């Protein structure tokens, strides 16, 4: 008999007690390796467990991101939490439910099929039996590996999954302490950093006396090689020391970067690792080739809070509390840098401000741990400064995307080449591609590593969504993975999807125009995927596409579609804008097909959030450089979309139609960017191919027409 194919998380965590534990007070603790980053996943996973166990949601506690008791599910990334962790939790709960009913049936001398579960209690013939999960839990061997052999409930039996259950963490966030930044036990020492300006820079002198004078209080300076931290029982003293320190520090061997390097165009021709994926080049190159090049600059995560972590080294054990996206990887990475066995480290997740990818969170955890190891028995709270978060977090990489598409006799794509220049999209430590930042400043910095991008099987990095979902007979990607970027780059929501979808969807409009056809009709003519077709038709309906021509001067209505990673959620977006010197987005419609939806309102919240973020990236955002490094180090130099600029947004999720859950947290970003690009093109009469669509670019485009 073939064993059912288990989700990777169950294979990696082959003990039931890593996933579930019945507590004495008639509650159940269900654990996940995924963490809450503002996307509502902890609430949603609770819903899955509540349904599968038939325990009220209020009695399900989710333990998230805990290396002591919880499973290792790597990072919370790539829109996989519901399918991977949710899928695992569903199977574990179904299996435990079956085992519990078996045990109860033995006690009751009946068949397990005679029993139903009502709020965790086992009923027979509509009557409570006195048996429950809690009476029989002691008889179940939770050290066993999950087998996935118990059938989970049918979707038609769900009572909690599919409901818009309110976020369990929201009330605390509206009324008081709720974040990693808010945990300050008595006796906590506050710490701040002096950052090594670039890899390899050497601290040649540090005027500690001057820094202490500027700090105006009790201050301890801890150092090793090029790593310096300021520690004080008074937070403002540590903050003052860190603010003053750069002018009292001299560095040699600082890497200089230049402003031209901040543009995506700089990437072309840089040393790169090249590969070609896909169909071989055509034997006879066509002459009817349409070419389009789009670009996206470096973009910041720009979290509302600077990264923060707590660390304590006591009795030979290091405990770190962090808002990073993966506690088990963090624990392993800390062990490597600190040179201590992983068993001596505990990492626990606390909520942070939204990170939208790999920001400074893990680095702050190392910073805090390094201080803690040097001050045993003390609780260390380390927080980055605002300038540090902007200046030293990894940023979303710039991308240059060129499409060369040969057309057939009907003006449809026959042969399609996508050429991408981009640095790596993932430099998460422990995956062979990057390091925790402070490790480079210590005495034995790790060797420089060759950057890698996630493989295509995991959705790719720079190549994410480069393969169009449209019916294209032959497609290939020329991927130039730029080996050295001027700044550290890593995962930002969507990875390469936004620039790739921008390019594909701008091309679709261009090809439609050349064929003299409506952009929606053109897309439908080359899209076989039924779920995609449905959304494209729906977005046209919702945005009143047929009235598009009569919007008036300077106004436009454009649309775009993509299926995230070509395997996750489908999403179509339409945007109505007016353009004078700047772009004003008036309305955005967003429709998505996410398969089975656990929490509809939570999903809509993510769609809306992705829309706003993508509008902000597309219209406003660019990381800027000066000789010292990143120069866009505060909100004035790195403006994001404001209340006065956010349009009316209508987000809608279509019925899942029995399809499995599809990861949707990132699905709206690519189509939103592209819809704006296409809309602006309709309004202006000329395409702007380089993001962000700033006033300067619009003026230049207007002058051309």
């Amino acid at each position: 008999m073939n064993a059912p194919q288990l989700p990777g998380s169950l294979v990696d965590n082959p003990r039931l007690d890593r996933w579930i534990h019945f507590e004495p007070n008639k509650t159940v603790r269900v654990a996940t390796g995924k963490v809450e980053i503002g996307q509502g996943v902890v609430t949603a996973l609770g819903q899955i467990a509540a349904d599968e166990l038939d325990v009220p949601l209020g009695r399900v506690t989710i333990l998230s991101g805990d290396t002591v008791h919880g499973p290792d599910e790597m990072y919370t990334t790539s829109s996989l939490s519901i399918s991977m962790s949710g899928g695992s939790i569903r199977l574990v709960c179904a299996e435990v439910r079956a085992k519990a009913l078996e045990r109860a049936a033995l006690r009751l001398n009946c068949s397990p099929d005679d029993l139903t579960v009502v709020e965790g209690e086992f009923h027979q013939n509509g009557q409570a039996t006195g048996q429950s999960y809690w009476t029989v839990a002691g008889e179940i061997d939770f050290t066993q590996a999950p087998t996935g052999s118990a059938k989970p409930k049918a979707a038609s039996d769900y009572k909690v999954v599919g409901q818009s259950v309110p976020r369990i963490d929201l009330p605390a966030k509206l009324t008081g302490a709720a974040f990693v930044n808010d945990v300050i036990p008595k006796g906590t020492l506050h710490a701040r950093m002096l950052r090594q300006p670039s890899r390899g820079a050497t601290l040649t002198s540090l005027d500690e006396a001057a820094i202490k004078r500027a700090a105006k209080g009790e201050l301890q300076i801890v150092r090793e090689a090029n790593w310096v931290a300021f520690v004080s029982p008074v937070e403002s003293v540590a903050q003052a020391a860190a603010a003053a320190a750069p002018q009292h520090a001299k560095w040699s061997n600082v890497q200089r970067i230049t402003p031209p390097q901040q543009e995506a165009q700089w990437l072309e021709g840089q040393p790169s690792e090249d590969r070609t994926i896909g169909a071989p080049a055509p034997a006879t190159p066509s002459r009817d080739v349409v070419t389009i090049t789009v670009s996206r600059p470096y973009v910041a995560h720009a979290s509302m809070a600077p990264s923060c972590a707590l660390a304590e080294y006591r009795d030979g054990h290091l405990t770190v509390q962090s808002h990073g996206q993966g506690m088990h990887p963090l624990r392993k990475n800390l062990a490597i840098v600190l040179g201590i066995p992983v068993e001596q480290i505990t990492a626990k997740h606390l909520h942070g401000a939204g990170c939208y990818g790999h920001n400074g969170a893990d680095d702050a955890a190392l910073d805090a741990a390094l201080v803690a190891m040097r001050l045993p028995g003390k609780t260390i709270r380390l927080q980055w400064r605002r300038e540090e978060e902007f200046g030293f977090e990894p940023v979303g990489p710039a991308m240059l995307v060129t499409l060369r598409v040969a057309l057939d006799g009907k003006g449809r794509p026959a042969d399609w080449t996508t050429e991408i220049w981009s640095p790596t999209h993932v430099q998460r430590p422990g995956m062979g591609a990057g390091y925790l930042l402070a490790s480079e400043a210590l005495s034995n910095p790790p060797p420089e590593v060759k950057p890698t991008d996630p493989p295509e099987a995991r959705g790719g990095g720079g190549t994410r969504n480069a393969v169009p979902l449209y019916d294209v007979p032959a497609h290939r990607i020329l991927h130039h993975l730029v080996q050295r970027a001027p700044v550290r780059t890593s995962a930002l929501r969507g990875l390469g999807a936004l620039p790739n979808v921008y390019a594909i969807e701008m091309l679709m409009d261009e090809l439609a125009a050349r064929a003299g056809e409506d952009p929606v009709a053109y897309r439908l003519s080359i899209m076989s995927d039924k779920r995609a077709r449905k959304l494209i038709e729906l977005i046209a309906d919702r945005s009143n596409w047929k009235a598009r021509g009569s919007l008036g001067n300077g106004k436009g209505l454009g649309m775009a579609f993509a299926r995230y990673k070509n395997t996750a959620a489908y999403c179509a977006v339409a945007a109505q804008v007016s353009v004078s010197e700047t772009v004003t987005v008036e309305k955005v419609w967003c429709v998505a097909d996410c398969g089975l939806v656990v929490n509809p309102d939570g999903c809509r919240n993510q769609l809306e959030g992705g829309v706003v973020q993508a509008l902000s990236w597309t219209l406003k955002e660019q990381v800027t450089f000066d000789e010292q490094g990143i120069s866009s180090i505060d909100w004035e130099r790195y403006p994001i979309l404001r209340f006065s600029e956010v349009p009316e947004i209508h987000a809608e999720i279509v019925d899942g139609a029995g399809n499995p859950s599809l990861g949707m947290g990132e699905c709206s970003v690519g189509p939103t960017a592209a819809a704006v690009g296409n809309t602006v093109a309709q309004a202006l009469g000329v395409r702007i191919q380089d993001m962000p669509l700033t006033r300067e670019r619009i003026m230049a485009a207007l002058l051309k027409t």
Partner: protein
Amino acid sequence: MAIAVTVNGQARSIDAPETATLLDALRNHLGLMGTRYGCGLEQCGCCMVLVDGQPVYSCTRELGTVAKRSVTTVEGLGTAAKPHPIQQAFIDEQAGQCGYCLSGIVVSTKALLDRTPNPSRADIVAALDKHLCRCGTHTRILKAVERAAKEMRK
């Protein structure tokens, strides 16, 4: 040096320098964590509190300047168990994703509704435009304020 301030209706004596920031005093001396540090530069609004009913950036405001005055933070409006109508409206609209920007926005909303109990959409946008929200929850936040205004007029 002890500085007398009324915080959330309670007379408090804060043993911190006059030049300490109000944010530092609230969090590190009074343990009131609802007011948050975002930038320290008056650029994001996360640190907003009310001083004598007016919105103030606590990240830069010196403690000495609020001596003998009345400060209100989110804790003074309501708790998770007993939320203020504004906080309840945000819960009802699920107006939050990471939630970090919300306490500052709730405080500014209180000031707005005290002044303008029936604000237009434009009034709300003008009052909140100094606040940044990176998650993109703006549309829900605006709806929450409208909902709170309606509830509070009852």
